[in-house]
């Protein structure tokens, strides 16, 4: 940081390198800064998480709270240089006469805008924390990004039966596609000794190509004619997937 005098004004200008901290939250300070050149970021910290609040470029002013009758001398947020920047420093005493003469209505509008800015900053802080928490949850559960979107084409023999495990309603076929939330099953309609119904709950047993045997409980959500004659396509949605089955299936579904 270097202090220099500008040719056009008698006001001190400060030069900051990219990454320099200009104001630290909680510090005592009265100066108001105007960005002359470069780009700075206002941010706050909450539970040691950094929350960016705003990015300011040439012409914008930082530290105006001091002037606007706020009874605070501690900095409400930190500011750092995002690029090499030049800032002009104003001491509030320089502005106090001008400020006294400022029409009450304009003071009032500025004060209101500041109030609402502070409220919006709180909203941003809350949302940023929530977003970071969500990101952490996602990291803990590596399958969640694939869960909704990833569906793999397969051809796996399976054996299924009704939830009450009656030997009579056992049927076999082939799993044509599978995801962590459901599967498409092809069965020979002639082999069925009983009518399948929508919403029926079945237990499907199969062996994945990685040799893992899995057993899942699923609900039939669609029944359609299959591509080849004499076949039916069942759409099923998994209702119960043990943590182990979820892991084995998850590994299998990982993009190669």
């Amino acid at each position, binding site marked *: 940081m270097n202090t220099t005098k500008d040719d056009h004004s008698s006001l001190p200008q400060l030069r900051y390198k990219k990454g320099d901290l200009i104001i630290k939250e909680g510090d005592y300070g009265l100066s108001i800064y105007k960005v002359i050149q470069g780009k700075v970021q206002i941010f706050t910290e909450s539970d040691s998480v950094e929350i960016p609040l705003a990015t300011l470029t040439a012409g914008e002013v930082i530290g105006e709270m001091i002037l606007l009758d706020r009874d605070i001398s501690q900095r409400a947020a930190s500011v750092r240089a995002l690029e090499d920047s030049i800032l002009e420093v104003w001491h509030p005493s320089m502005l106090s006469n001008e400020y006294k003469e400022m029409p009450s209505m*304009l003071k009032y*509008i500025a004060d209101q805008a500041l109030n609402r*800015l502070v409220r919006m900053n709180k909203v941003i802080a809350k*949302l940023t924390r929530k*977003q970071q928490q969500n990101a952490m949850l996602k990291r803990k559960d590596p399958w969640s990004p694939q869960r909704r979107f990833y569906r793999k084409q397969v051809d796996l023999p399976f054996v299924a039966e009704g939830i009450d495990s009656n030997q009579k309603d056992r049927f076999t076929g082939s799993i044509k596609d599978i995801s962590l939330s459901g599967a498409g099953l092809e069965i020979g309609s002639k082999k069925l000794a009983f009518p399948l119904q929508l919403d029926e709950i079945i237990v499907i047993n199969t062996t994945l190509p990685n040799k893992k045997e899995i057993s899942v409980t699923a609900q039939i959500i669609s029944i359609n004619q299959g591509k080849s004659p004499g076949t039916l396509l069942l759409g099923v949605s998994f209702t119960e997937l043990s943590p182990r089955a979820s892991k084995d299936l998850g590994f299998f579904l990982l993009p190669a």
Partner: protein
Amino acid sequence: MDVKQFLYSYIAKEEYYEDQEHIIDEGRRGDWLYVVLEGQVKVKKMTPKGVLTLDTLQKGEIFGEVSLWLAGKGVRTASVVAEGPAKVGILDTDQLLKDYESISPRLKSLMKSLIMRFADTTKKAAILSVET
């Protein structure tokens, strides 16, 4: 909050709104400034996820300053909707701009910067709500 006495000399017109009636429509042109005189109003913004309520303004609070001071834009950046019956005052823009011309360049940049930051922060809050 009470409505400050000096505000009344700026009020050009008073308007009444029914519950859920729009006072300002996002995206429409306009540069009137308003003050809430009775009741309360909500600030709402359209997002890809639907309408988002960003703030609630009470008696005495000002709205509409973004389109007045962010030069050349004059486009409403959010909607303001009455929450229950509300009475608002429309402020005399000519008088406000005359006041603004009378202040020092430093105070002008301070005020403009503040309003710009308020507008940016509002936009950012809306974007974050959609992502979260």
